[in-house]
């Protein structure tokens, strides 16, 4: 019996030291459970929401059809348009990355175990603008039967560039440092571009087909919210939200935007 307890304690010690020594990325099966529990525990006092709409002021630029090569055109029937500026039917702006720039203090947030999927499909990136947390796996897919190279050009993270010549190719990568935004491009098809916001917290959102965004499960507090658009730049607002409160923060991009 004594012997058994000894072995057990040795095992526990071993696994404890093992976890402490590991540098994080290769999360073992043992680590997964506590992480999930932690995030649940944290969400208990995180009930505030910031939501809003991205308006656009002025003349919307006409969408430009993409000058794709024959190989790419053969992959889809519909015409693709340039995604530098995507206006929604209701006059709002799509693909604006909205995130908490500051106000979270020293809080640490667990790294989600679910990867962010990013696809190369029909010589186009889906999604065009997205967010990811530091350390979170970016799962890069190639759904096209031709060569794409996924070339990320971050400034504070390390750039990477993978050749993905075959349909069904998968590569995984992650970013270590927060960075808004990281540009991703394909050198084979110069019209292909995407942007990725890397943050060390989960409070980000991208404006959708009706121009709205929503940042949920925030702890109550005062935050600087930044909205980023690849053509129109950035805008910020300072917002205070209380417990279980929802605040609206609208942004207006375009010519006469203040």
């Amino acid at each position, binding site marked *: 019996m004594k*012997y058994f307890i000894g072995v057990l304690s*040795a095992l526990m010690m071993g696994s404890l030291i093992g976890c402490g020594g590991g540098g994080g990325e290769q999360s073992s099966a043992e680590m997964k459970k506590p992480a999930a529990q932690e995030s649940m525990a944290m969400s208990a006092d995180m009930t505030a929401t910031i939501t809003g709409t991205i308006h656009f002021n002025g003349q919307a630029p006409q969408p430009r059809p993409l000058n794709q090569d024959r190989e790419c055109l053969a992959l889809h029937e519909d015409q693709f348009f340039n995604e530098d500026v995507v206006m929604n039917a209701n006059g709002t702006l799509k693909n604006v990355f909205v995130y908490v720039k500051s106000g979270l203090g020293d809080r640490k947030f667990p790294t989600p175990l679910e990867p962010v999927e990013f696809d190369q499909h029909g010589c186009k990136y889906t999604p065009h603008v997205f967010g990811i947390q530091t350390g979170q796996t970016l799962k890069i897919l190639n759904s096209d039967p031709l060569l794409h190279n996924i070339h990320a050009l971050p400034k504070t993270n390390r750039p990477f*560039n993978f050749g993905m010549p075959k349909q069904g190719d998968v590569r995984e*990568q992650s970013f270590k440092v927060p960075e808004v935004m990281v540009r991703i491009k394909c050198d084979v098809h110069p019209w292909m571009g995407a942007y990725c916001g890397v943050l060390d917290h989960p409070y980000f959102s991208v404006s959708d087909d009706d121009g709205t965004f929503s940042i949920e499960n925030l702890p109550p507090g005062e935050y600087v919210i930044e909205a980023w658009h690849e053509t129109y730049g950035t805008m910020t607002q300072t917002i205070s939200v209380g417990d279980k409160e929802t605040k609206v923060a609208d942004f207006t991009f375009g010519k006469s935007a203040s």
Partner: protein
Amino acid sequence: MRKPRSIGIIVGLFLISIPSQRLLSQEPDLGTEAQREAGKKIYLEKCSQCHGEHGDGSGEAKAFLRPAPRNFTSGIFKFRSTASGELPTDADLKRSIREGMPYTGMPAWRDLTNEEVANLVYFIKTFNDYFSGPYGVVEPIKIPDPPSFSDESAKRGRQVFLDNQCFDCHGNLGRGNGKSAPTLKDQWGYPIRPADLTKRWTFRNGISRRDIYRTFTTGLDGSPMPSYSIEPENQWALVDYVYSLSRDEPNYATMVVAQAVQEEIDLSKGRSLFGDEEGSLVPVVGQVIEPGRAFHPGVNAIEVKAIYDADEIAVMLSWHDMTAEKTGENSPALAVPKFSPEMLAKDTVYSGQYSDAVAIQLPSKIPQGQKKPYFLFGDKSNPVDIWFADLAKNKAEFFVGKGSENIHSGNGDVSAISQYEEGQWTVVFKAARTSEEGLSFVEDQFIPINFSVWDGFNNERGNKRGITSWYYLYIEPMETESAVIPMAKYGTIVLLIELVLIAYIRKKYRKEEIPAATGKT
């Protein structure tokens, strides 16, 4: 007593088995203060002129260099033995310093001691925080031992090349003319060209099979060349295919031999007139002596072949070009604005104004002795004939040059035909062999010849062009009938005459002497 000891052993075993992850997270090696200081001294003396005092790649020579000198503050390094997204190892940086990079401004620093190079690397690593941060510890990829090269493997590698669509950038035959090639840009937005895989000697990351393996496995950071994850059984096949496309060293020629052909030269036959043999390869460099300088010429070598028949001579020029510029215009006399670094930067973006072009230069008169006309379009007392082809026009023009400021149309009769195929231009010039006033191409004669080439994609025109030094065009004498038959003929005649003579003499003396002899006995 026994049990605690066994527990101790078990605990000990656990402690030993744990730290595998710990070993990986060792501290980056940044050198000592003294080492970095020593490195800084060398850097300021030897490196800062191009890479800048602060390592940002903006030294004084920057405007003249393509590729631009590395900006060390970006922490992006092309030549690594590490996975895509990782920093290079110290050994990688040392290799780049020691070996240099062919066909760029980066020389090989072979005279530095190992200690000096190590210190230099420690200093270079201070330019960027990546080296001291979470990305600081790196591990090189493992390159398995290569099986020996075989043609079979190279043949299989062709399929790997196709499957991985390397041709998108490098072109179907590896000549650097893929469909994406003209749009490629480096990390800093400068145009960048894919490697011409048929010229291994220009590979900046090394020419060995291991080097080729490393290049496509790690990718070249800062450039469009990605990291490929090729199936292990196909990796060396791809290496061997690329390896089979060229040789270690270019076989540059010292002269061009014009060979006689029996049939009349029909220009429309183009390249096939000249047979399959390798021609004379001559290196091309940028014209940087006179205003309008070309610091980054688009063409680095021309292959030359020549033939002649009874009346005419034909010279074939062939070179690899990423794209054929068949619109716009070109001429050896086109003006190029005065040089400024700003102009140089602007002039790197294809303007669509200038077509590809090529020229042959010959002295207007065969020079006496060793003296040749000035190699940049001649001089006042020694003019040159310029056979020029603007490849937007598919015809030849004839100029007389008395210096690059003094080029005029001349009366020479020269024609040309051109073709662009699979990333390669072929231009054939043809002219009469004899001329009453001008240059004649006489058998067994050495005639000075040199070449100019303009890459329209690179906005080359006028004095902004690729040039070669003088070579000799040797007109190999027409092969007469073999000397053996006439020799045999004359030999036989002489023999017959001798035999007749001998017979006559013997007959004569036999008549006279035999009776006498009989008389004696």
